[in-house]
C-alpha cells in the first residue's frame, strides 16, 4: 500500500477518477493526514461536519500562509462569496439570495417547475428515432444550462462563449498537485475576468429596464441594504452561472449511470416515481457532483481527531468520502433509494451550504423522473464511462447509451 501522505495525489490522479471510493476508504482508515504538499485531508463524516461548522476554519484563501496564486494581489479578480468569510460572505450571499429564495423570494425556485418540465420534455422528445445517445451532450448538459440561463438572464446562444470560459475556470480551481498547476490557475483567473466582464455588461444593459431574471434584479432591485458593487456583481454572476450548470449536469448523469448500474432501483422508481425525491438525496450521498472542498484554511491550530492542523495550512474536506463513512451510514456503499437516515454532505453544511440546492434538487428530480419514465430499454454502452478531468466537480464527460425507443 502506498503511503497515506500521497493520498491527495492519488485521489486527484485522473487514473482514479472513475472509482475514487477505495481511496476514500483508505483515507477514512488513515484519519486526518498531512499530505506531502503540506495540506491536510479529512474524509470522515463527523470530522468534516464538525469543520464545516467550526469558526476557526476559513473559506478565504487569503488566510493561507503558503503561497497561493489564487489569493494573491496578482490575481486581481474579485472573490465571490464562496471564498469569503462572514460577515462579508453573508452580506454578498443575502444580496444574491434576494431575487432567488426566501425570505424575499420564497416561491422563485418552485415557480420554475413547469418551465423545467417543458425543457426536459423537449430534450427527451428530440431523442425520438435515435438508438444511440450521449446522455451528457443530448440531455444532462443542455438542461441545467438552459435553466440557469433563463434564471440569470443570459442569452442561451452565448453558450459556446461562456462554456469555454467555464472549462478554463474549473481547470483553474482543480487542486491537483501537478506540474502545470500554476499555468492552469493563471488561465482560470483570466477566464474569470473575461466572464465577469461579459456578465457585468449584460447586467448593466438591464439597468432601468427590469426583466424577470437575477441579473436584472441585481441592478434594478438592490434591496434596503444596498446592492452589489460592479466587481461584486461580476464575481457573483460568474459563480452562479458556473455552479448553476457545472454541478447539476454531474448529478443528473451520475444519477442515470447509477440507476443503470442498479436495475432493481431503476425498476422500483419506474413503479413508484413518488420515491424520486428520496432517491435524489441518496444520489447526493452515493455519487455526489461535488467531491471535495479544496479551499478551507485553518485560522489557528485546530485539533481534529487527535491531529493538530497548523494555522494557515489548507484543509481539504472530502465530502464524498464523508458521505460514505460507515461510522455514520448503515451499509454506506449500498445505493438505497429508499434510505431514510440520510443527512449527506452532498450540499455541504453550515453557512456555505449550497446556494443553489433547491434548484439542483427540482431539476434533478424532474429530469430523472422523466428519463426513468420515458427511456425505453436504456443500456450502458461503456462502463465506466469517460470522466471529466476535475476531481472536485466529478462526473462523466460522456455517457453513451443505447435505447430501444421512447415512450410518450
Amino acid at each position, binding site marked *: 500500500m502506498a503511503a497515506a501522505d500521497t493520498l491527495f495525489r492519488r485521489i486527484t490522479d485522473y487514473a482514479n477518477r472513475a472509482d475514487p471510493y477505495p481511496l476514500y476508504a483508505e483515507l477514512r482508515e488513515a484519519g486526518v493526514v498531512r499530505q506531502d504538499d503540506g495540506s491536510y485531508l479529512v474524509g470522515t463524516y463527523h470530522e468534516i*461536519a*464538525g469543520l464545516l*461548522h*467550526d*469558526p*476557526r*476554519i*476559513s473559506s478565504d484563501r487569503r488566510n493561507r500562509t503558503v503561497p497561493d496564486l489564487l489569493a494573491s494581489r496578482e490575481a486581481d479578480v474579485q472573490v465571490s462569496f464562496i471564498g469569503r*468569510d*462572514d*460577515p462579508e460572505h*453573508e452580506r454578498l450571499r443575502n444580496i444574491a439570495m434576494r431575487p432567488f429564495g426566501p425570505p424575499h423570494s420564497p416561491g422563485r425556485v418552485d415557480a420554475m417547475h413547469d418551465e423545467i418540465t417543458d425543457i426536459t420534455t423537449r430534450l427527451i422528445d428530440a431523442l425520438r428515432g435515435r438508438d444511440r445517445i450521449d446522455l451528457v451532450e443530448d440531455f444532462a448538459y443542455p438542461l441545467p444550462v438552459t435553466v440557469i440561463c433563463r434564471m440569470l438572464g443570459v442569452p442561451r446562444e452565448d453558450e459556446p462563449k461562456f462554456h469555454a470560459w467555464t472549462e478554463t475556470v474549473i481547470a483553474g480551481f482543480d487542486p491537483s498537485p501537478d506540474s502545470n498547476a500554476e499555468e492552469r490557475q493563471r488561465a482560470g483567473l483570466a477566464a474569470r475576468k473575461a466572464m465577469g466582464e461579459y456578465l457585468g455588461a449584460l447586467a448593466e444593459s438591464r439597468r432601468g429596464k427590469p426583466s424577470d431574471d437575477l441579473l436584472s434584479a441585481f441592478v434594478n432591485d438592490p434591496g434596503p441594504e444596498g446592492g452589489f458593487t460592479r466587481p461584486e456583481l461580476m464575481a457573483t454572476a460568474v459563480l452562479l452561472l458556473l455552479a448553476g450548470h457545472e454541478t447539476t449536469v454531474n448529478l443528473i448523469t451520475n444519477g442515470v449511470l447509477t440507476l443503470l448500474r442498479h436495475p432493481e432501483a431503476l425498476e422500483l422508481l419506474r413503479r413508484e416515481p413518488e420515491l424520486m425525491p428520496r432517491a435524489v438525496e441518496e444520489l447526493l450521498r452515493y455519487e455526489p457532483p461535488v467531491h471535495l472542498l479544496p479551499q478551507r484554511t485553518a*485560522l*489557528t491550530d485546530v485539533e481534529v481527531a487527535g491531529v493538530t492542523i497548523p494555522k494557515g495550512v489548507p484543509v481539504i474536506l472530502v465530502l464524498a468520502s464523508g458521505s460514505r463513512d460507515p461510522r455514520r451510514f448503515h451499509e454506506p456503499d449500498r445505493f438505497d433509494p429508499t434510505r431514510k437516515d440520510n443527512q449527506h454532505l452532498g450540499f455541504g453544511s*453550515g*453557512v456555505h*451550504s449550497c446556494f443553489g440546492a433547491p434548484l439542483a434538487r427540482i431539476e434533478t428530480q424532474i429530469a430523472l423522473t422523466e428519463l426513468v419514465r420515458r427511456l425505453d430499454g436504456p443500456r450502458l454502452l461503456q462502463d465506466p464511462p469517460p470522466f471529466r478531468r476535475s476531481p472536485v466537480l466529478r462526473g462523466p464527460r460522456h455517457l453513451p447509451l443505447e435505447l430501444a425507443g421512447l415512450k410518450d
Partner: protein
Amino acid sequence: MPDDLKSGRIVIVGASLAGLRAAETLRDEGFIGELTMVGDERRLPYDRPPLSKQVLLGRVRAEETTLPRRREVDAKWKLGVRATGVDPIARHLLLADGEQLPYDRLLIATGTRARPWPNAEEGALDGVFTLRTTEDAAGLAERLDAGPRRVLVIGAGFTGSEIASACRERGLEVTVAERGPAPLVGALGKSFATLAAKLQLAHGVDLRCGVTVTALNGSDGRLTGAELSDGTRIEADVAVVALGAVRNTEWLAETGLAAGPRGVACDAGCRAFNMYGIVTDDVFVAGDVARFPHPLFEYQLISLEHWGNAVAQAEVAAHNMVNPGPLRRPHLAVPAFWSSQFGLNIKSVGVPTFSDQVVLAQGSLEERRFVAVYGYRGRVTAAVSVNRAKWLPYYERLIQTAAPFPPEPATVEPSTHTPVPSDVPDPKVLSHGPTVALTGHLPDLRLTLRHWGG
C-alpha cells in the same frame, strides 16, 4: 418475552407534538398492538410555534397548523376528553366521561397550559387572552385584525416578546409589562436581556420593566386598560397574558406518581418515578410535562418547554416502551430552541440558565449577529446565537464535550470580549415562568414517611 412488548395495549395521554411523534415511533418500531390517543383538545395534533408568529401576522390561519404526519399510526383517537386519573394497579386510565381505558403501558404527554390571569373575573373580560391553543390564536388574530388601539402584553418571555413583535410588525401600538429587569432575562440572563430591551424600544414597543400589572380594568365586560404597580395606568383594548405555562399534572395527584408543579419525574429512559422515587416500568413520560435527569447538567432533573425536546423525548420513550431493558436508550439530547422576533432569528443550545458566566464568542452585538457562549464553573453549558444559527453545531459539540469556558476565541468574525457574569435570575422574580426549570435540588414537596404495620 421481548416480542410481547410489540403487542398489547398502549395508551398515550396528550395528543399534541410529543404524543403524535411517540405514536409514529411506536409503529415504526413494530408495535402491532392496540394504540389509543387521548387528548382534551378536539383538534388533531397541531403545531404551536406558528401560533405566536405567522398566525398573528395573518400569514397562516390558526386552523391550518395541523402537524404533518410521518406515517400512519392506526390509533383510536379520543379527542375532546380529559384524563382525570390513573389506577396504577388495575392499569386503567380514567377519563372525564367516566370511561376506564385499560392499558399495558401508558405514556403521559399532557404538556402544559397557559398560566391564567390570577384574577378570574378580570381574566374573563372580553379582550383578555392567553396564547397556547388554536382557539387562543384564532381569537387573538381576529382581534389584531380589527385594529385595536393598543395591545398590552403581560410578561416578556419568549411568547410575550414574539407577540409584541407581531403586533409591531402589524403597526399596532404595544405596551409590554415585565416584572423582571428586561425581556428574556429569565431564559438568557441579563446581558442578553439588555440587548432585547434595546431591540424592543427600537421597534417602538412601550416597554415597562420592573413593574407588575396590578389590575385589569373593564367596562361592560370589556377590557379598557390596566393599572401598573408604579401607579401608572394604560388604556388597552387587548391584553395578552404571557406569564408562562403550568404543567398539566394535577390529574395525577392521587396516582402515587412523582407528579407536581414542576412536572412528572422520570429516569433517563423516560420511565416515570413514583412518589417514593421507585421507577415504574409501565408508565412513561415525554414532552413539556416530563422532568428528567440530564448528565450535562449534573444529573439535575430538568423540564424543557422546547419543541425539539418533545420530539426527541417522545421518540426515546416510544422506543423504550416496545424494547426490553438492554436495548433501551437514554434521552440525552442537548436542549435546543429557537425564536423569531423583531427581525432576529434567535437560537439556543444547551441550558443558558445553567451558567455563571457568559461571553460574546463571535460576531458583533451592535450589528445583531453573534454567538454568546455560557459557562458554569469553567465549562461550556450553552450557546445562544442571533442571526448566526448555522454555527451552533460547533458550540453544541463544546457543550457535549464539557469544553473549558471561556472557549478559545473564534477566528471567523472574532470578538475581543471577555466573560461577564451571566446574571440568570431566580425564576421567582419573573412575570413569566422559566421555559427551562432546573429542579434537581428543589424537591416539590416533602414526603411524609409512612410506617407500614406488621
